[in-house]
């Protein structure tokens, strides 16, 4: 590694004008350097300003309401970018600095072939003829590992998988041999196995092209192996930065320690997950020690039994015919009372469909779900109605699952009204306020609207809504996946406390193997609609039997 710096960020401040008198300081004097031919990881939760600093480098911030004071500096190979004109910046970006984004599905233009999109980038920055550019595009696609690039160059984005789309984005980014590649959460929208491939690809390209990579992520573990230098950000300030080994092995800042500790890991299962506040308020040493033992024994009472559940979707094919696509094939399991069954799988594995089918939010094409000696799938809608309160669900996206025009009070009262719990609205409101306190919210929340809460708080409201019906079974459909690491730990702790308190049984659906390991007694692995492995979680993680499970476990970052 040379000591020369490719990019130096000096005292960068970015302020957004929100309204007439409102300002928000997104970056409060940030300093870091990106040396030549190295990987710098920028780590932080949402709102930490990590993406803002990348956008500032790329000049992608809206000029109309962004203020960068004159004493800030961004020195790229000796020239200060902030002193350059708009046109100079634009020439630089794409040629010497390029960026890949989180979601490849929205970053590629759906109406153009991928080849044309790469050719466009090439011809914008290099004096190439159409044919030369096309040849170069094929080479690039081959380099990023797209099979059969000569024909794939004519594909439209929707004809490719998410992983392949991200590879195309990477091909576009490296098309002009940039010196700096900014990767903004490049794998967050992808499955674990694909994530691993993409990161390997990025590292290979970094080596072969001799470029630097600024890797932005919320997941510290992800960059443990690849980063040379780690910068930890929190609310617009840098909490800690240094060489990767020292940040990971001996983190100095409590916030870094918290980020490392509150993410559940595959090898430990603390009684309660540490949360960021424990570290920031210096309660680090008071954390409960010891591990929670998990597992289901044959003697445990069974509350829900699923036998050979099938779910198929009808897909139109041509004008008249239909094709049946099986989303869930022959899944059977038993859920023990007061225990958690984790359901893991990648996107498209049918895990969410399975959860929704059990709750009859989907139709079902075969098999049975036995609860209280009744097959829920065989009941009419009217007969099923009283069972609805016993089986509840918490959705993935806390921003979408609460009706934006209802106050929190309305949201909590509605299920009680529908199911006739309590006689008067006053009793119901009292109950709702108790529930709000139980899930850790202020009672003032009762009259507020969902948009006034953060993601983690909204997920607490969802949990309170379910609790209002005192369900016996709770389906958590990726319930913590959209949350920041520190908030995730809090919600997981809450779910665990509630299970201990009310004896609820959970079906915990997630793509995140570490979280599933932490919370589950048993684990069911799904792949293409089939269950490939089903065992006690300790056993499954210790010695996975199925090849697919082994592949999944091998792809966990930081392992």
């Amino acid at each position, binding site marked *: 590694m040379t000591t020369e710096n490719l990019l130096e960020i000096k005292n960068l401040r970015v302020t957004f004008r929100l309204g007439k008198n409102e300002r928000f300081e997104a970056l409060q004097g940030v300093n870091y350097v990106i040396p030549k031919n190295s990987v710098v990881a920028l780590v932080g939760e949402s709102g930490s300003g990590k993406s803002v600093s990348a956008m500032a480098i790329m000049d992608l911030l809206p000029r109309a309401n962004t203020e960068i004071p004159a004493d800030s500096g961004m020195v790229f190979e000796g020239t200060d970018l902030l002193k350059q004109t708009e046109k100079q910046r634009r020439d630089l970006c794409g040629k010497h600095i390029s960026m890949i984004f989180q979601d490849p599905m929205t970053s590629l233009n759906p109406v153009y072939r991928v080849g044309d999109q790469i050719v466009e980038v090439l011809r914008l920055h290099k004096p190439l003829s159409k044919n030369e550019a096309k040849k170069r595009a094929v080479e690039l696609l081959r380099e990023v590992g797209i099979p059969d690039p000569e024909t794939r160059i004519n594909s439209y984005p929707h004809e490719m998988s998410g992983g392949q789309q991200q590879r195309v984005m990477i091909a576009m980014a490296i098309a002009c041999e940039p010196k700096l590649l900014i990767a903004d959460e490049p794998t967050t929208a992808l499955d674990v196995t694909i994530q691993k491939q993409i990161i390997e690809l990025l590292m290979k390209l970094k080596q072969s092209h001799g470029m630097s990579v600024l890797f932005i992520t919320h997941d510290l573990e992800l960059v443990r192996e690849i980063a040379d230098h780690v910068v930890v950000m929190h609310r617009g300030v840098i909490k800690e930065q240094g060489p990767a080994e020292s940040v990971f092995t001996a983190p100095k800042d409590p916030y870094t320690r918290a980020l490392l500790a509150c993410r559940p890991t595959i090898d430990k299962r603390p009684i309660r997950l540490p949360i960021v506040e424990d570290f920031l308020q210096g309660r680090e040493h008071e954390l409960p020690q010891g591990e929670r033992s998990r597992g289901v024994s044959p003697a445990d009472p069974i509350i829900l039994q699923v036998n050979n559940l099938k779910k198929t979707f009808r897909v139109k094919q041509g004008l008249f015919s239909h094709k049946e696509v099986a989303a869930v094939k022959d899944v059977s399991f038993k859920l023990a009372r007061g225990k958690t069954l984790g359901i893991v799988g990648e996107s498209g594995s049918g895990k969410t469909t399975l959860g929704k089918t059990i709750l009859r939010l989907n139709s079902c094409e075969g098999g049975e779900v036995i609860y209280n000696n009744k097959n829920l799938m065989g009941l009419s809608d009217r007969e099923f*109605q009283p069972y609805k309160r016993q089986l509840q669900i918490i959705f993935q996206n806390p921003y*979408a699952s609460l009706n934006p025009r209802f106050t929190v009070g309305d949201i909590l009262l509605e299920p009680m009204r529908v199911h006739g719990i309590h006689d008067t609205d006053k009793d119901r409101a009292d109950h709702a306020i108790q529930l709000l306190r139980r899930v850790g919210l202020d009672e003032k929340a009762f009259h507020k609207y969902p948009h006034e809460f953060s993601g983690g708080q909204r997920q607490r409201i969802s949990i309170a809504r379910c609790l209002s019906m005192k369900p016996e079974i709770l389906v958590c459909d990726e319930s913590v996946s959209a949350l920041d690491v520190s908030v995730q730990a809090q919600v997981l702790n809450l779910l665990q406390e509630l299970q201990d308190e009310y004896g609820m049984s959970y079906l915990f659906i997630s793509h995140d193997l570490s979280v599933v390991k932490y919370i589950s007694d048993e684990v069911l692995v799904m792949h293409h609609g089939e269950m490939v492995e089903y065992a006690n979680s300790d056993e499954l993680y210790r010695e996975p039997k199925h090849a697919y499970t082994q592949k999944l476990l091998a792809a966990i970052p930081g392992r």
Partner: protein
Amino acid sequence: MTQQQASYGFWRAAGKRLWADKLARFCMAVLVVYFLVAGAAGMGWVAKDWNEEVGVSYANPSFLGDDYPNPQGKNSIISQDVLVIDEKQKAVDPLAPYYEEIEKNAAAYEKAEVKPSWTLLLGGDKWGRDVLDKVIKAGQVSISIGLASALLAVFIGTVLGALGGYFGGKLGDLLEWFYNIFTSVPYILLVLAFAAVFGKGVSTVILVLGFVGWTGTYRLIRAEYIKQRGRDYVMAANAIGASHGRKMFVHILPNVSHLILVQLSQLVVDFIKAEVILSFLGLGVPTDSVSWGIMINEVMPELVLGKWWQLATVAVVMSTFVVSFGLFTDLLRDALDPKASRR
């Protein structure tokens, strides 16, 4: 976002955004004036005598003065000889003995003769009616037609759109089919057919416009329901056991209500203009009543005579209203959907 801040919902936030806009405040002020005047006319407080002959035919507007050439105006008076009946004439007049009696009888019906004015504030029409009173009365009729028919159209469109969008399937297909048939018939033909069936009258105009104008709202609301029914919050309502009606009208409807409001105000403008066309074609408001459309219809022969004030009045009054309402609708949409309005 501070926690101390008063909690306010979607509508209050939208109202605040709307109020912050100077143009929106101006438009609202104009509209309030119109609605107040229309309301007063409806209660009979103003423009009650719009149908009375208060001026001479085509009375001049005051600002032109009574010297402005007008065949019926003051400047057209020709002095006449007064016929004096003297004794000599009485002697040969067979009615002469009855004069006294006739005058006595006539006195029983004595009425102070109201001299039609030579000039009126904004002039008069062919029958000497005050154009100002007329335009106020016409405004009341037109605005109430616009509002009532827009309400009817939006109601039909919303209910059908909600049913079609929420349930889909066979019912959705049926409604789509109905919608397609309906829109395939030319608009004017449809209006003519409805008008022919219902006969003439203000309520007919409302029904015709309402029954013909629901299609746009239907399409919009149906699409929105299709979008919303798959949302997680509807799924969550389903999971807690809410009925179809509840999901449709308690959960989804508030989430599309801002679209309905924008549709409503857009249709008010559209229907006021449509009423003008209908009345112009003679299918609108009956002639014993008045509307902006009727007034425009009456203008044609007047213009040939050079009597331009009725047209000018109705054009200014109506276009001020339509422009204010249209601007207000746009600003309302921006306020209700702040993301879409960022330019």
